[in-house]
């Protein structure tokens, strides 16, 4: 537990010039990187991470109010599974996708 405390999230927050929004800016920057970048193995020896869009959506909930973000269309890219056509999904359906229970 000591190590976890040592790396408390506060250690990761952005030093920005936007004052009180530091933590959220820092988290957003981290998510942009940790979920989409780094070494990505496509090989069949890696477990499929098809649930990642849902996982990313859950993270957004931690960042801001879903209602507000949905209103501004900020979560669409992350909420809609790639196999679905974005144009065919409305906000209500997006909300349902975000509430799918993981296996």
């Amino acid at each position: 537990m000591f190590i976890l405390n040592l790396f408390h999230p506060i250690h990761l927050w952005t030093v920005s010039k936007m004052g009180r929004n530091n933590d959220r800016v820092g988290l957003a920057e981290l998510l942009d990187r940790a979920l989409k970048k780094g070494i990505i193995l496509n090989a069949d020896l890696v477990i499929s991470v098809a649930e990642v869009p849902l996982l990313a959506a859950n993270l957004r909930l931690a960042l801001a109010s879903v209602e507000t973000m949905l209103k501004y269309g900020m979560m669409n890219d992350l909420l809609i599974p790639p196999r679905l056509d974005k144009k065919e999904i409305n906000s209500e359906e997006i909300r349902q996708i975000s509430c799918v229970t993981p296996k």
Partner: protein
Amino acid sequence: MQEGSNNALYVYGIVIGENRPDWSSIGIDDNQVFLSNMGEIKALVHRCNTRPYNSESPEKVKEMVLSHNAVLENAGEMFNGILPFSFNTIIHEKENKSAEENLKDWMGKEEKKLKQIWKKIEGMKEYGLKFFYEPEKLIPEPEEQKSDNLNGKGDGIRYLLKAKEAYQRKDNLIRKVEEKRQEILNIIQTQIKDVKICQPRIKLLEEKKDLLLSVSVLCNEQQFDDVKKIFERSLDSEDYVYTKSFPPYSFMDGIENGP
């Protein structure tokens, strides 16, 4: 492949260099993270089952990603560099080979590439820089006398002239934004060689200004301090933000496919 047993490996990242058998860390869900060695190439892993990490709780998911990142930061300090894997990389057993054997096979095959990238990132970290602009500052509102030109004109002509003016303003703005973007990019590139232009997927509500440029840079702390100083002198404090350091997630090009 059984989901229940711990027959898979969650991979956080790769380090290369001297042996440190004593290194360990606490990872996602308090799992013990250890090194899986393939010569001087070492993977940071913990044992897990084959189910990707996820949760219905946003806080829990946030905690998992932060734990992933914390392990990478810990190892990065210890080994003077880290090749980070994307969150949720889990290697499983396959064709009568254990997850560990599969991982080592992959490290062996990718050894050359891994060493090349290690050379580039050793002693370096990733930082993010975002720049914003206000259209009104780049393209000031048209002066009053211009509007006087509309006096005495018919409604149709007035409409067309206004539309033309709006179009020209938009065109000007695009040009100015591109100039400004290039100017900032040039300043960064005079200090730092490895610069990646990002397409941020998340826009926070508090970011009221328009995004001019978002970049990730790979450099050491001193180089980043130098860049910050330049912008502290030349830009308004509200026109940009910068991040603390990250493991170099954005600079892992070339290692994308397994066997």
